[in-house]
């Protein structure tokens, strides 16, 4: 049993199971409708992509509070530039901007020695401010031709009846899982977070690993924005607000130990599923939307405490 519990992401699976049971009992009709499930899966996929990026950063022992703002910034870039310069250019621009932000933050943390919490908090505000300034507070949208472009459809439409975001999330999950489990990068990532000094003494270039994690986190946030907006291409200034908190919550609920070195990509995705499900259920039950935030906060705290204790228990001798 302990061995199973030691599998990262275990808590998330349990969480999902418990949650589904609870919802079935409380609100069978409201919950198990095609519409609700489809929406939940779609939004959970988006958040899941963000959460996976966050999980990577947390696994190196850092944190990225800026993903929500990067998501918003990339989204604005995609819609604004995609509308004028063409969709492929928009995609490229959005990803480049996201990567640039990630790189800057990574450098500030690794070379500048500034705690990641501060750097990314600064990034959160700077990016959000740039969004406001760039859009001037107005809403942007895609012109008709851009909406019908093949790339837009591929990114945000419907494939074989399944919403594209879900497929993209699964793709990302698959690719990252392979990298983490099979390639040396994954090993080095976990080593960096698990014990910086010992990783360095074994020759792991922890600085580069961390920078890579920040860049990936930002890229994934940007990609998630592109996927979201391909489906519904209009932006507003609050795009992505609060998402960083949700992404962290999802990653934590999914089993990342916040001191780094442990984590689960699948767990992060499941954590996102839990969070989005709760939001929908709360809305369905008629609770005011403000309670959602309170709720995420409570779940976050419980999840992180449970994770720490679970990890400690699982590590003890049998």
């Amino acid at each position, binding site marked *: 049993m302990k061995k199973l519990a030691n599998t990262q992401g275990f808590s998330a699976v349990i969480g999902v199971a418990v949650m589904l049971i609870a919802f079935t009992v409380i609100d069978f009709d409201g919950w198990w409708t095609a519409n609700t499930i489809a929406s939940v899966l779609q939004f959970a996929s988006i958040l899941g992509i963000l959460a996976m990026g966050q999980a990577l950063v947390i696994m190196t022992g850092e944190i990225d509070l800026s993903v929500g703002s990067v998501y918003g910034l990339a989204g604005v870039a995609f819609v604004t530039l995609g509308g004028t310069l063409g969709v492929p250019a928009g995609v490229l621009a959005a990803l480049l901007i996201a990567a640039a932000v990630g790189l800057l933050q990574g450098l500030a943390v690794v070379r500048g020695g500034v*705690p990641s919490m*501060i750097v990314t908090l600064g990034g959160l505000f700077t990016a959000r401010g740039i969004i406001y300034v760039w859009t001037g507070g107005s809403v942007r949208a895609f012109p008709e031709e851009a909406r019908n472009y093949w790339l837009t459809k591929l990114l945000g439409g419907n494939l074989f009846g399944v919403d594209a975001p879900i497929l993209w999330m699964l793709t990302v999950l698959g690719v990252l899982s392979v990298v983490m489990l099979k390639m040396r990068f994954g090993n080095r990532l976990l080593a960096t977070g698990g014990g910086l000094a010992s990783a360095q003494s074994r020759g792991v270039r922890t600085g580069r690993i961390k920078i890579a994690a920040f860049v990936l986190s930002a890229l994934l946030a940007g990609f998630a924005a592109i996927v979201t907006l391909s489906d519904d291409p209009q932006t507003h200034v609050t795009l992505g607000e609060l998402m960083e908190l949700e992404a962290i919550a999802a990653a934590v609920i999914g089993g990342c130990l*916040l001191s780094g070195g442990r984590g689960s990509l699948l767990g992060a995705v499941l954590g996102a599923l839990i969070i989005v499900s709760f939001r929908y259920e709360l809305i369905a039950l008629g609770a005011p939307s403000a309670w959602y935030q*309170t709720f995420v*906060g409570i779940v976050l*705290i419980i999840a992180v405490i449970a994770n720490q204790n679970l990890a400690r228990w699982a590590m003890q001798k049998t």
Partner: protein
Amino acid sequence: MARLAVKPLVRRHSEIGIFLIGAILVVYFSATSGGYWANLYNFGTIMQQTSTMGLMVIGLALVITTGEIDISVGSTFGIGALVYLWLALRVDPVLAALCATAVGAAIGTFNGVLVTRTNTPSLIITLGSLMIFRGLAIALTSGFAFSIPYKQRGAFSYWLLGGDTLLGFNTALIWLVVALIIFSAMLRLMPWGNRLLAVGGSSDSALSRGVRVDRIKLSAFILCGALSAFGGVLEAGKLGSADGSMGRLMELQAIASCVLGGTLLAGGRVSLIGALAGAFVLSSIQSYLVVMGVAPQWFMVLLGVIVVAAALGDRSLQQWALRK
């Protein structure tokens, strides 16, 4: 040699940097704003904002000194304002203020107990409480604003709690000065302060000398919660009303103020007056942008850049000062 004398001075008085910057900015702003920035009324506004934010900054600085962080201070500020306004309609404002502060202390206790008992990073715990109490504030006010009716605004206790001015400056400033003196004294001149600094410097060493590290950290969180809530009380007193979003985004400004003022995020080194100078500088910049007609969103961008630059600069400065 003068060079050798400067280094220990910089090491011991990490707030020198912010005072220099502040002085330069004041001169620059005054010169370039044609009297719109550098007048008594505007100055009074800046000081009022600095004062209510300043109480929160002092509390946050205490927590940072122990090596922890509390990013829920903005939510606590908001809750303090709301509790005060709701009660002030029903009971004596002074009692209402006390209750609001007590609620802040309770939030601080919540944070502190979770951090010390569960061995979880304070960043995440206070992230959670930020969300919990922000959500509560919005939910309880249901989007409406609480306010104090005009006829009550002349009373003495109202004046005392930020409702009006003394010699042209909002009474919140008096509270700030009092808090600054008391907590600076506690930090530098009392055993509690010695232990607080020790915990931030090396909590393992402090523990090995018998210091009750958990209790010290808990006390810092409680004080931070109480001070943040009281700041909210004074802000509510000044504005006369508040809604559920009050205090939002103040945490970054508070952290930035501390960092600008020479408080080390790793803990163990703090300057309360420096942190307040940092708060003053940020309020001044914000005011300047308004006076010069710049879109307020630029302040957000600027704030983000300033925080990172300040943290980078602080590290470089301290490293320079440490080289023998």
